């Protein structure tokens, strides 16, 4: 039984605190602003930071999209949508263009976002320096001194070991030339979408109690060395087996029958839209 009757789950005091932290985060791009993360009726690690941001933002007329690793229908995305809808009555959508609030885990949608949209990213580990330094006060000091030698060393060691930077996801970025930031576990493919983005990007880490932001039109550079430049995942020569899209982030799958490797759009709503528009085009051309 849900006994909570607040609009958007939170009491107004909780929202105010998150809102104040969010405005500070926008004013100091890439800096992790501490906030008093609340207990949420979903498991921690399932996007409570992103959810708290969404609940502090949302109003009656918003249209919400929630995606988990590119899919609108995953259990996690559905349970977040359910909680938000039950406490606000807002409209939800799968269509990226229709949404004005988009909460996502592990992806930035393929369709370019606009100035009228806010992207909320769920963050499991907001501290890009944590792998090299376990102590919070020490990482805070490093950020304060613009001392990112630890982050560079991490990349250097990867190159020594693998001949390239081996970060599969969450490849660290420099924001506005000042703070090194964890972009959340998005693939490297999505990092460039943060650079000079038209949409405001907010990131929330529930367990670690941090909110941070990338304002629109802000420089976001992926950390790289001159002779080992940053490179996104390459799907050269591959295309989606369903919609035929290339130049999107593809999932690698094994065809159960043939045992062959096949590729498919990771962003399922994008794929559906491509399919629909191709079908429409086919239908239209057959009537022409």
């Amino acid at each position, binding site marked *: 039984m849900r006994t909570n009757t607040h609009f958007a789950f939170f009491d107004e005091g909780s929202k105010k605190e998150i809102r104040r932290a969010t*405005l500070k985060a*926008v004013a*100091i791009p890439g800096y992790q602003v501490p906030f008093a993360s609340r207990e949420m009726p979903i498991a921690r690690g399932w996007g409570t930071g992103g959810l708290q941001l969404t609940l502090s933002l949302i109003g009656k007329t918003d249209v919400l999209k929630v995606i988990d690793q590119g899919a609108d229908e995953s259990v996690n995305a559905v349970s977040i949508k359910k909680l938000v809808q039950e406490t606000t009555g807002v409209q939800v959508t799968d269509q990226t263009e229709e949404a004005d609030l988009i909460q996502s885990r592990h992806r930035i949608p393929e369709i370019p976002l606009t100035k009228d949209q806010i992207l909320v990213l769920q963050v499991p580990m907001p501290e890009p320096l944590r792998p090299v330094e376990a102590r919070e006060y020490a990482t805070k000091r490093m950020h304060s001194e613009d001392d990112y030698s630890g982050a560079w060393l991490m990349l250097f060691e990867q190159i020594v070991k693998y001949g390239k930077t081996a970060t599969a996801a969450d490849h660290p970025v420099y924001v506005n030339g000042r703070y090194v930031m964890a972009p959340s576990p998005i693939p490297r493919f999505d990092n460039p979408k943060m650079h000079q983005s038209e949409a*405001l990007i907010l990131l929330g880490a529930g367990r670690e109690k941090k909110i941070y932001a990338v304002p629109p039109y802000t420089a976001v550079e992926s950390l790289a060395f001159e002779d080992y430049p940053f490179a996104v995942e390459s799907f050269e020569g591959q295309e989606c087996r369903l919609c035929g899209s290339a130049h999107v982030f593809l999932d690698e799958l094994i065809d159960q029958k043939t045992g062959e490797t096949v590729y498919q759009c990771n962003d399922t709503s994008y794929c559906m839209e491509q399919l629909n528009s191709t079908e429409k085009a086919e239908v239209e051309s057959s009537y022409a």
Partner: protein
Amino acid sequence: MAIDQIHDLQQVYRKLLHSMSRPGTISSIEQETKQVDINFGCADSFILSAMVLLDAEVTFHVLSKDRQNLIEKISNYTSARFASVKEADFILVLQEDEESDVLEAMAQCKIGNLIDPQQSATWIIESAVLSNEDALVLTGPGIETAAHLSTGQSFRFWQARDSRIKEYPMGIDMIFADSSSQIACLPRTVSAIPMEVK
């Protein structure tokens, strides 16, 4: 009709966030200021901006010395506590305030420290009617190339602001609210260069 503490303030917050993310962008909160039915003796957009952000967890300072009434009203409505200019989380400036007081407060207010730059004062300023005339040229995050904004503040005001944001990430963030139900914001990251000497 009175202000709806949930839905009206949510709308004002989104406009504040929009304008803070896009410095120089003027947002209208006319739908919400219409609902203000108490006379605070200042612009409704100014009061609503304060209501969105103030509660018992934070402190505020009012510059004007003969506005005891306003201090009490804000405390009553938001439960925020009055504090000295050096400690206050929010500095509230009215159009009638003396420039010398404003400049002094600017020199004294908190700007955070390198470890916790967010522990800084946010200024809420009742301004002249905001427009995108080129009184100020703005550049920085949130602005594609350059933006223009006119707030009615003097050259000395911008000089004083400049001296408090030069040790970025420490600094102050500003919200301007006018009598035409408009708001605009200037985070610490943005350079504001006055184009005319007043």
